[in-house]
């Protein structure tokens, strides 16, 4: 049995070596068509600019059914995106374009194959366009391949990123981090120690938001140091536990032991940190989240959360539907359409979203 064990350990060592080695020898080239980063795309246009460029939405003849596939309706964010897409379809319907949308989601953010089955079902039903927010970068790839093969346009809304999808509509995730970093930097007068609570390792939004935050701090605020960076897997509970640990380590006794700000990759985690912060008297960090869920707005009103970066899923959903219509009408929609986002603080928390992002409904061509 010892022999068996040692053989196993040896084989394992060789395998790990082979795996790591392969990585060093053949790094994936960044120009690889399968490796796509919408934040860094050269074919990216801001939504309002695109609207100016393309003009009124073409009046499509005939009737259209769109399919929308969200990650999980358990999360308010995706329910809001659903409302956004349905609102968009309803507005265009009123405007004379006969379009309806069937919005569905997977059974939780772990149901990768279930989400794929939904896309497959929509292809079988011959929907006219499919709008997807994949759970991971890969789980809907076979479905998107099949849809494109069947001639159905696919719009990738938000993350995960489907490299082969012809169009992406969503906020610039890197910019999320930039907005948060600039706010924190100004609030701290360019000095202090900050921590980052990141989302699930490897998730596109988590990577880009963190990167945008760190690079902005480094470039604009050289006297601010990022002292901690840990994942809480998008979970409120994990974020709360993590913050509790930090508040024990950073007890404010010396300048090295203070924590002046905590940036969280989403609001759910920020609210977990807020909860931990309620029981902490030692340090008083600025807490910033991303997403703009309603609970975060309430927490800002109550003065418990300092800011969130809202990417307005209600309007993003409408924009996604608009882009699908433009694509079906044969207009050239760029590879990436960046949707509006804004920093929400006590200063504008009660302002209407339409004012904050200066939203007006798109014009529809008349006959």
């Amino acid at each position, binding site marked *: 049995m010892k022999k068996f064990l040692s053989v196993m350990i040896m*084989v394992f060592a060789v395998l790990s070596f082979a*795996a790591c080695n392969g*990585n060093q020898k053949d790094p994936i080239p960044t120009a690889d068509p*399968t490796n796509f980063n919408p934040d860094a795309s050269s074919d990216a246009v801001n939504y309002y600019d695109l609207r100016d460029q393309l003009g009124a939405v073409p009046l499509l003849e005939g009737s259209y059914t769109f399919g929308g596939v969200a990650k999980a309706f358990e999360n308010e964010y995706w329910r809001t995106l659903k409302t956004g897409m349905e609102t968009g379809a309803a507005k265009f319907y009123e405007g004379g374009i006969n379009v309806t949308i069937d919005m569905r989601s997977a059974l939780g953010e772990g149901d990768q194959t279930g989400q794929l*089955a939904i896309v497959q079902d929509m292809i*079988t039903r011959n929907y006219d366009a499919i709008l997807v927010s994949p759970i991971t970068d890969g789980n809907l790839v076979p479905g998107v391949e099949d849809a494109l093969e069947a001639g159905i346009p696919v719009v990738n809304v938000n993350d995960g990123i489907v490299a082969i999808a012809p169009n992406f509509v969503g906020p610039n995730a890197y910019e999320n981090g930039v907005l948060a970093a600039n706010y924190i930097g100004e609030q701290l007068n360019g000095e202090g120690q900050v921590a980052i609570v990141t989302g699930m*390792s490897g998730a596109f939004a988590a990577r880009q938001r963190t990167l945008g935050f760190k690079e902005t701090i480094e470039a604009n605020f050289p006297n601010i140091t990022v002292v901690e960076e840990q994942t809480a897997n998008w979970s409120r509970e994990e974020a709360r536990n993590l913050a509790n640990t930090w508040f024990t380590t950073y007890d404010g006794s010396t300048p090295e032991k203070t924590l002046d700000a905590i940036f969280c990759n989403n609001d759910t985690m920020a609210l977990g940190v807020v909860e931990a912060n309620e029981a902490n008297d030692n340090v008083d960090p600025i807490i910033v989240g991303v997403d703009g869920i309603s609970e975060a707005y309430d927490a800002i009103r109550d003065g418990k959360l300092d800011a969130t970066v809202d990417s307005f899923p209600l309007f993003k959903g409408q924009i996604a539907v608009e882009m699908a219509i433009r694509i079906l009408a044969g207009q050239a929609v760029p590879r990436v359409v960046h949707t509006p986002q804004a920093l929400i603080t006590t200063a504008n928390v009660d302002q209407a979203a339409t004012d904050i992002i200066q939203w007006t409904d798109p014009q529809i061509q008349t006959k």
Partner: protein
Amino acid sequence: MSKVNQMMKNVLKKFTWNNIKQAMASREGLLIISIFIIVGVFTIIDSVYIMPRNIVNILEQSVVNGFLAVGITFAIVLAGIDLSIGSIYALSIVFVSKFLVGGMNPFLAIGLGILVGAIFGGFNGVLISKLKLQPFIATLGTMSIYRGIAYIVTNGNPVLGIPTEYRQILNSNTFGSIVPVSIFLLIAFVIFTQIVLKKTRPGTYIYSVGGNEESAFLSGIKIDRIKILGYAISGIGGAIAGMILLAQLGTGEPIAGSGAELNAIAATAIGGTSLAGGKGSPIAAFLGAILLSALKVGLIVAMVPTFWQYVATGAIIIVAASVEIIQKRLKSSTT
């Protein structure tokens, strides 16, 4: 008219209650009948369900879960469990992706992928037999360790650029591009494991160890070896499932398969494998996986609202498990 009536009567005679009862008395027969009922019901609700595209979809989904379910059957027959099977699945995905991106021959990469499953699965067996750890605890631990290794190897990022050559080997369709090739691989795996369990000495020992470890030990069976073998096969099931998913997706994600162990356990339980050990078969697990996929896809096709799908899935698992009891009654009434 009377002739038609006569014919009908003759046909009906063949479907006597006793015949049906006999078919239902075997677990496999019952599963097949249940699958037909599910397919029938969903086809009536929406004929889209029976379309070839949709059947491919059901089969593709059941292939991945089928490999996991057949694998975990070995752990469960041994009166254990393999919670790490979803992580082994992810490990095979990331290792094989790395091999392929590094330019390795696809067949060699597949071979090494199977080895990855055997090693990490076998390691579970070592922990359980040599350290006498509870299978639930041991594999709960390795579930996290293996997932961690998958993240470490890839630094948390998906591995991109899987060669199409590899994807074609494990993910193409035959027979008018309706039947995925991978279903035949699963059937081969089911037959192979069924023979191992039912016809070979180690297989018999697996049942004995799972049924009564004490008496198996007293009759001179080398329990440790049998356990390591059983968990290694479980790992191999996980590894092959991972390699097939990799071929389907074309992206090697370390996050893949989190929660997959629960689907595998569900399929196995629907197949009638008792979690108490000593009973169960790969064929039943395979049919359980098909039934589960048929149901899940059916709920999507029938446009059951998302939140109700949770309720429906859970209810079916409970109904399927309670069939065991009904079946026992039927058995006693036919004899």
